[in-house]
Each structure stands twice: as C-alpha cells, then as structure tokens.
C-alpha cells in the first residue's frame, strides 16, 4: 500500500536550492506527475524517494515508516530511468531477472515473475537479445519490465518518455498508464512536458525553483491555475495589463493600459483601481465580423501570421499597442483577411491575477 509523505524536504547544491521545504503526499494507487522546467527540483524529489540523493533536511515516509536514511536497495521501489540504463553487458532476460537474482529467488520464482513482467510490456519475443540490438522504445520496455519484476508497488519514473520519438511517446504513455492502473501500482512520474503530464496523471504537482506551486488534477491545473507561471507553463496564453475600472456583481470591467479597450472579467474579487494581469489562451480567441456592442470584442491589426497546418497563429496589435496571439483553425479563417479585424472571446475564459512584482520573472519558463 504505498503511501508516500514528504515532509519539509530541502536540498542545496552549493548555493543553489534544489528543494526548498517541499511537502507532498502521494496516495495509494495514484499516478502523480512532478512537472516543471529543468532545474526545478522534480528529479531531486524522485531521487530522494529512491534514496539516490540524500536530502539536507526533512523526511520521507513510506507507509508511515521513515525511510530517509535507508540505502536505495532497502526501499522496495521500482525505478525507470530517462536513458533506460538497461545493463549493456546483459541480455534482455538477464536484465529483467537481475532484481530477482540478487535477492536470491529460486529459479521457478524468477521465471514466473520475469516472464509475466516481460509479457506485460510485450518484450518477451526479444528475450535473448542484447541492448545494443534494441530500439529506444524496446529498451524502455525492458527497463519497465525490470522495474516490474522487483515486485514493488511503487514505480518511480524519471523522464521515461523524453528520449523516445514523439510518435512512440503518445503510444507509450497510454500503454504506461494502462499498465500502472492494471497492476494497481502507485506511480511518481517526472517530466518537463506538460502534454505528457496532462495526459497521464491523476494529479500533477507543478514545480518551480525547488518549490511546489500547485498540486491539482490536470483539469483543475489547466482551468484554475493559481499563478501566472502555472497558466503560462500549461497553455499558450496572452498576458494583458490593465486596471479595474468598474465593479459589478460577479463581474468587473478592466481597462487595458494606455487607455486601451475595456475587457469584462468574470469576477468581483478585485478592488477598484487594482492593477491586474489578464490572461486569455491563444486558442480561445476567435475572429468575428459582428460589429455589435457586445462585450469583449476588440479591434486588432494583424501584424504577422504563422501557418502550422491545421492551425494558424496570428500576431495581433491592439489599439493601445499591446500584442496578442491568436490560434485559429486554418479552415475557419475568412477568405478576405483584412488588415484590421475584430476579435472576440468568451468572458469565462479570462483569468485575472494581481500584477506581480516582476512580471518577466513570472513569465520566464524556467
């Protein structure tokens, strides 16, 4: 019943704080991803749970037992590595049976467990091959089977998909989730790719600079980010600066800077004169001709376009000079695209944040 509790975990490499008082709880049979840009400390958490990294402070509880000082071999974990780490001098069979042999299991047991693990990932036909003859996805399957054959209920995955081609990655990530759920494992998966995280996880812990910013389900994280950084990391958004001009029930009107256009937002939590950052996702903007007096319709000038196949990205300039980007389905683009158009977006798709001390820092993807 793996139930992992991490309490006040801190770790510094010289002056760099890799982990800064991290608290995290992972529940039994949960698929949790640690998501964040490189250097955010996600791998350090994983390696600390595995025992490959010794934290400076804090403790890690595994089913209530403090394992912080245990060596990795006594922690009962299964780990999958970014670069597979399939032992190059052993064939597939010897790799998968390795954790069983070093624990002195009997031949019968070894065969039973290993064959089952290899069947699960579908590597059984390649049992006698050596790693140098296997492709990257096959190697990762061997790595996975090897982790399964430890019999551990906790699976630690360190960027297991990042070295695979994007085509295999999609296939593999579905396969992975299915296997983990099928075997009733608890999985902690480190990735820097938000698409993988959204797709595979029950919950995502988003990290930055050694701290966890938000832990939530993928949906919550996407639709209710608690910071500009989270919003920016999970989706391609526009960030506009403005000041609250009018407050009504359940909605407020914000005027964009430089006496720009007004935008109505779906909240009344901000005081008047409050300086805000509004975010609108690129793909929630649509082009419209209707010159009605409805809310949230703005005039914009197209200054550049990037054709990406199914979608096209437009760079727009608003009346006050602010830039925006809009991602439009290519088939929806009007035939005669003028220089000045009107754009619109739904009021519920606008999120608002207090203007931060340092917007550039919040928007930096690191």
């Amino acid at each position, binding site marked *: 019943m793996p139930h992992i509790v991490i309490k006040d975990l801190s770790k510094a490499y010289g002056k760099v704080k890799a982990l800064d008082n991290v608290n995290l709880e992972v529940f039994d049979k949960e698929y949790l991803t640690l998501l964040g840009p490189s250097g955010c400390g996600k791998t350090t958490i994983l390696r600390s749970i595995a025992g490959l990294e010794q934290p400076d402070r804090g403790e890690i509880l595994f089913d209530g037992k403090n394992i912080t000082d245990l060596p990795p*071999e006594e922690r009962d*974990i*299964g780990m999958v590595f970014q670069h597979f780490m399939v032992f190059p001098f*052993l064939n597939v069979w010897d790799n998968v049976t*390795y954790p069983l*042999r070093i624990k*002195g299991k009997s031949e019968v047991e070894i065969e039973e467990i290993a064959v089952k693990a290899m069947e699960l990932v579908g590597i059984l036909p390649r049992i006698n091959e050596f790693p140098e003859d296997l492709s990257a996805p096959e190697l990762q399957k061997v790595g996975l089977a090897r982790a399964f054959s430890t019999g551990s209920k906790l699976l630690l995955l360190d960027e297991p998909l990042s070295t695979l081609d994007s085509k295999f990655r999609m296939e593999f990530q579905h396969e992975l989730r299915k296997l983990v759920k099928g075997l009733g494992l608890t999985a902690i998966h480190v990735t820097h790719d938000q698409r993988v995280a959204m797709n595979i996880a029950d919950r995502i812990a988003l990290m930055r600079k050694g701290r966890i910013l938000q832990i939530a389900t993928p949906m919550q994280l996407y639709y209710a980010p608690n910071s500009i950084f989270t919003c920016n990391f999970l989706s391609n958004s526009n960030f506009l600066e403005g000041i609250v001009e009018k407050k009504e029930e359940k909605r407020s009107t914000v005027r964009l800077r430089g006496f720009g256009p007004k935008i109505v937002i779906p909240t009344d939590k901000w005081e008047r004169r409050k300086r805000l950052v509004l975010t609108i996702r690129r793909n929630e903007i649509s082009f419209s001709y209707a010159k009605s007096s409805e809310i949230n319709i703005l005039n914009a000038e197209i200054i550049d376009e990037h054709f990406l196949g199914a979608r096209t990205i437009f760079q727009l300039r608003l009346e006050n000079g602010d830039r925006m980007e809009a991602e439009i389905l290519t088939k929806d683009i009007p035939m005669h695209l003028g220089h000045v158009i009107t754009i619109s977006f739904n009021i519920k798709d606008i999120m608002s944040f207090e203007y931060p001390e340092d917007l550039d820092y919040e928007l930096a993807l690191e």
Partner: protein
Amino acid sequence: MGRLLLKIEKGLSNRFFGIFGDSFTIGFFILIIIVPILYIFSFVITRWDTIYFNLFNHPILGDKQWFDLLTALGRSFEIAGIVTIIDVIIGLPMALILARYQFRGKKYIDSLIDLPLAVPTAALGFSIYLFWGTHYGISGLFGLQTGLFSEGPLMIMLVHIVFTYPYIVRNLKEVIMRVDRTYEHAARSLGAPGFTVFRTITGPLMKEGLIAGAILAFTRSLGETGATMIVFGVTETSPIQIVAWRQLGLFGPAAFLSMILVLVALLLLLLLKLITRRVGLPIHRVFVRTERALSQPILRKTRNGLIALVFILIVILPSLWTFVYIGTNSSAVYSQVFLGADNKLAEFWLSFLASLSIAGLATLVCVILGIPMAIIIVRRKWGKLKAILDTLIDIPLVIPSAALGFSVFVFWGTLGPFGPNGLFSPGYWLIVLVHIVFCYPYMVRVLIPIVSSIDPGYEEAARTLGAPAFTVFRTCTWPLLKRGVLAGSIITFTRSLGETGATLVVMGLTRTIPVIIVDWVEAQSLAASAFASVIIIIFSYVLIFFLRKITLASE
C-alpha cells in the same frame, strides 16, 4: 618575413609534400622502430645452428644455458603474475577511492601515486633496497644489523609492485571515472547492495580497462630491468639474463631469449586488442547473504584504512627512503662523492649530461615524427591500415626493454643486415636510437587523444578562408596541440631518463644515470648511489610537477 613564411608554407602545402610527409613518417616508423624489433626473429632463424649449439651442446656448459633460460623465463612470469594479482588487489580500492571520493588532500595522494612513475626505476629500486634490504632501512629502526629481507624474488616483487602500482591505479581510475554511475543507481534501485552492485554492474562495465591495466602491469613487471638489477641477488629474471649474456658476449642465447620475450609481448598485445571484449566475468550467481554482509559500511572503512596503510608502508615510504638515508648519513655521502679517489662526482656529472642530452635528442625526434603520426592515425581515412598502425605503435611499449635493446643492437650492429662493420656500434648514438624506439609510442599515445579532440571544423574553416594546409597547421592546429606536445615531451623525457634495460645492452662505454646507480650499488657504494638517486628523483619529480600543471591547466 611574414610573406616569405607564407610563401614557403604554400610551397610545402603541395600535394606532393603531403604524400611525402605521410610516407616519411610511416617509413621512419617501420624502418627505425618496427623492423629492428622484428629483426630478432630473422636473426634467430638464420643462425639457428649456432644458437642451438650454444644452448644445448655447448662443449663446456652443455645445456646449462638452456636451463638458465627456462629458469629465468619461469621466474619472470611467476613474478609478473604474482605482482599483477597483488597490484589489482591493492590498486583497485585505491583507484575507487580516488575516482569516487572527495576528501581533503586527495590532490596530494593523486600526485604521490605518480611518484614511482616519474622516477627512474633504478633510483626507485635502490631506495626500496635501502628500506627493506639494508640496516639503514626498516630493520635499523628496530636495531637490527642486517636488512629485513635479502635480495631475491621477494624483494624483486616488492620493487615491481611499487613501480607498477601507479600504472594500475591510474588506468583503473580512468576506467572507473568513465563508468556511467546511473547504471549503479539503477542496480541499487532494483535492490542490489553495494558489493553486489560493484561485482555485477561496475565490474563488467570496467572489465576491459581492468584487463588492459593488468596486462600493462604484467608487461611492465616482465620487462623491468633497472630496479631489478639492484635487488635480484642471484635470482636472474629474463631481462637480467639478457643483459648478463650480452655482457659475456653470448649473443646466441641472448637473442633466443629476446625473441621469446618479444613473441610473448606481441601475443599479449594481440590478446589485449582482440580477446578482452569476450572475456566473461562470473556475474550470474549471486551470493545474497555473503554479499549483503560484505556491503556493510564498516567493512568499507576498514578497507580504505588498510589501503592507505599499504600505500604508505609498501609504496611511499620505501620510495622516499633515500632521502632519509641521505639525511642520516650525510657525511658518508659527502666523503664518498666529493672526496673519493675515484672522483665519483665527475663520473656523475658526465653521466648526468649524457642522460639529459640523450633524453633531449630522443624527445626531439619523437616530437617531430610523433605529431604527423598522431595526425595520420586520427585523421586519415585508411580503414584497416590505420587500425594496424594504431596497434603497431604499442609494440615497443609492451616489449621488455632489454629484449628491445638487444634487437636494436643486433640490427644496427655487426651482426645485422648492414654487414660485418655494422652501422652503429654500442655507445652514445645507439643509446639515442634505442631511446627513440622506446619512447616513440609514449609520445604518439599522448598526442592521439589530443588530436582527436581537435574539431576538424576549425581547419576546414581556415581552408575555406584561403589558408594552405601548412599554414592551417601552424595557425589553427598547432595552438591547440601545443600543450599536448609539451606534456608528451615531458613524459618522453622522463621515460628516456629512467630507461635502464635497453641502455645496459647498447651503452658501450657511455653511462647514463640509472646505469651508474646500478654500477655503484654493485660496487657497494651505497652513499654515492643515494646521492645520484636523490638528484635524479628530484629532477624527475620537478618535471612531473610541470606536467601536472600543464595537464591540469588544459582541463
């Protein structure tokens, strides 16, 4: 002057000169280095009748020489084998400590390890002899009047362990540092305790390096002459036997023994190149309980302590004992060196100058012909031929230097293909020639990784900018190569300075420093030997100090 230089370079960049340069480099390598070594086979075969007569049917000695030859060979292998095993046992943990642990003073241990490597083996052997074999050494501390051990197999092994130790430690350290630790992490995450990880994961990953290091140590021990001359007593090893027969004028048996040693060395080299990858280690069975017990931290600490003790007691203290001797017997040293009737000081200076000039000349030739060779091996796209050259380069490295010296002596001398007068007679120039043969691989081996680390893109860029090949070399390649050449030169120079075995065979009336140390110890002039040893140890160590500066700076 600039314009003239460019013009000359442009002329030299001609295709013709390029081909000429390659052919000259390879021609030199084949004719000066490889052919003389292999000539010993032809020599033995064409004179088989005389050699057979000498070995088996000598009118006075009967088959005594054959018997001596077998004994010497057997001894050499026995000693080299035992030394290699002990080396691996005490060298592996040290390599592990140096590669994996960070601790204060590591830098100093790292450079102390190199001490036996830098110092001429004769000086080293003398120091160790003083420590174990005389009452000036360890036994003196306990008030004994004789040494703890007498000259013979045991002391030969002690000496050989000391001077092969750095080879094995440095080799293994490099290998261990190259092992990707994530494999070990993977194994630990799968539940393997420390000892099991080392045996089943690290071991196989470093196997090739371990075997290469062991073979290197084995060939070093097999071929060592300088230090062995001092401590062998009556236990002749093969190189000693060659030197002895050469001095007695028994060329037949000496040639036969040389040939066997060359053959063995070539086989070992072949083994190294072809077989090591296929050697399997027994890693499938795991002794769970025992290995878990062996993985305890307390055992690791005990091991580290023991290794430190062995290192200090077996390697460092004996190597530096000459300094202690000089410190406690300064008046004896003074009277023997400066006041003796035989004027040892003059003899010392003469041989010192000879050593330096020989080493300098050999290094110069190795630089001039080593650079193009390294470039050929790294850059030319010759397929198989290149791989063959790459293997041939190592031949002088693995052959016992006495055998190598004897081959060269036979080839250029009165018994060789140049007729009854020979081209070179024993003496200064033949020593230079032998040292070139002996040192050449060191130079090329140092340069190869440096040349391959230079991105040919820079040179291509320079070519597109209009520089002819020679100008590209001067302006682009040379600045990147410079440090490597300096490092290679220092290594070559110290190798030449310390060489004894081959020098003893070809020296004629010329003496180098290691040779006079051997001579003086034989004449029981310990004080004078100590004087010569200390000077050459300091001199070599200063050179190595600069070498480390250079290599560290370039990292």
